């Protein structure tokens, strides 16, 4: 066990050394594959120029608004469809029709409807996380133990509205939150994709850099996205574990 703990950092080190070696040995031009040693300088240029902070804040803004809206709508619709079978039937074909459409396929419409704007980015992100949350919440709320529903009814918690807060939401919280967590990653993909079309943020900055063949800057932003995703995931898991502490 104690030996295995070193395997993860060792793997990363081997990966970085290999990456460094390929352009250094002249196997590939450093323009096509910037070595990791060139990244701190590129990172510093982006920071001191102010671009990095602006782009990161822009992206975080799109990300949080789109994520909150998409997650909220997805969870609310999913739970509602699980609880009211009329709504479930009503939505079933709409869901089948819209769900297979990839989020990015909405980009042309997002631009036509909202222009190259924050709203367009938000829209793409909302679509990107909506279905994951819809299905996770629907499944979790459908799977609530019927014995607990019977318990609620026998003590006067009759009807869906009186069972929603005390039974349905806590009983399905774990499933809902696993959907939200998947959405956290999806939303980062959607944010970058939307910005590649020119909406200000990390994606746009990456496009600018790549058109100037500043590949080291592109890598800086790739790593930025990975780190931001990692941080949101760590924060989310921390919050989730506190929220679900009753699960032991």
């Amino acid at each position, binding site marked *: 066990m104690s030996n295995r703990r070193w395997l993860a950092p060792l793997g990363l080190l081997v990966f970085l050394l290999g990456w460094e070696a390929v352009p250094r040995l002249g196997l590939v031009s450093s323009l096509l594959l910037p070595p990791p040693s060139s990244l701190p300088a590129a990172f510093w240029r982006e920071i001191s120029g102010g671009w990095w902070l602006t782009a990161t804040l822009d992206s975080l803004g799109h990300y949080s608004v789109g994520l909150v809206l998409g997650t909220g709508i997805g969870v609310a619709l999913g739970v509602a469809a699980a609880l009211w079978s009329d709504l479930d039937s009503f939505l079933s074909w709409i869901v089948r029709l819209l769900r297979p459409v990839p989020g990015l396929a909405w980009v042309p419409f997002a631009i036509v409807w909202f222009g190259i704007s924050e709203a367009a980015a938000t829209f793409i992100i909302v679509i990107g996380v909506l279905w994951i949350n819809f299905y996770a919440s629907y499944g979790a709320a459908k799977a609530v133990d019927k*014995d*607990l529903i*019977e*318990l*609620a*009814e*026998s*003590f*006067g*918690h009759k009807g869906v509205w*009186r069972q929603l807060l*005390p*039974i349905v939401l*806590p*009983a399905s*919280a774990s499933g809902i939150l696993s959907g939200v967590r998947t959405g956290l990653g999806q939303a980062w993909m959607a944010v970058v994709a939307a910005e590649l079309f020119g909406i200000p943020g990390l994606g746009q900055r990456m496009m600018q850099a790549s058109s100037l063949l500043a590949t080291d800057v592109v890598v800086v932003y790739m790593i930025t996205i990975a780190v931001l995703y990692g941080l949101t995931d760590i924060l989310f898991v921390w919050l989730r574990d506190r929220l679900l502490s*009753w*699960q*032991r």
Partner: protein
Amino acid sequence: MATVVDIADLAIGFDNGPPVLASFTASLEARSFTAIVGPSGVGKSTLLRVIAGLLAPRQGTVSTPFEADPTRRPFALVFQEARLLPWRPILGNVLFGLEHLPLSASERRRRALEALELVGLADYAHRWPYQLSGGQRQRVNLARALAVQPALLLLDEPFSALDAITRHTLQGELLRLWQATHTTILFVTHDLDEAVYLADRVIVLGSNGQPGARIIRDFLVPLERPRDRSSVGFSDHVGQVRSALSEIMTNGAGI
């Protein structure tokens, strides 16, 4: 003795299927302890759910002649499994039953703590369900029902999943609570020994060859308390119930 619940000609069935219970009529007197025994599948648990108002009967009525007290529930069910809400501490689980009664928050809390006190778990109010043993969870299940001060306490094989030692302890506890709270009890079990040990009256359900169960026998158990399971009188009564049951089983129509 005043009647607490009148159950008149109750028939129960699902959809268009044959009746589960063809006919059930009984009056339960205040402070009485009645046990219902019968082969599995005879509709004992379903009967409790109809009395509790969770299922509608096909025919017949369940009436409660006493004055309705809005701060109490007419019926409370103790389930076979504890059915505790894992996201609530023990006190929160007992409070769950009180949330739709017109009581102040402090009165709810007082009643919940009192019920936990009754089952000997006052010190566990702030623990979580997963920290309790199976027997302790069944005590919480019981406390949750006692807290609503039901006119009739319905118990659905509440001790059947426990080990013999815990079961005997909890049987004794239930008798103590019954005497302390003056509540009326209807107790479903398939354990004849348990029925005779606990109840004043034992109703045997079976199907007697026709579709749907009905009352096969209705005994009184006039044994003095505390009862001695090893006494001759006790074995006699268990024997009577057993022979009533084996009669319907040998008729080939137990279920």
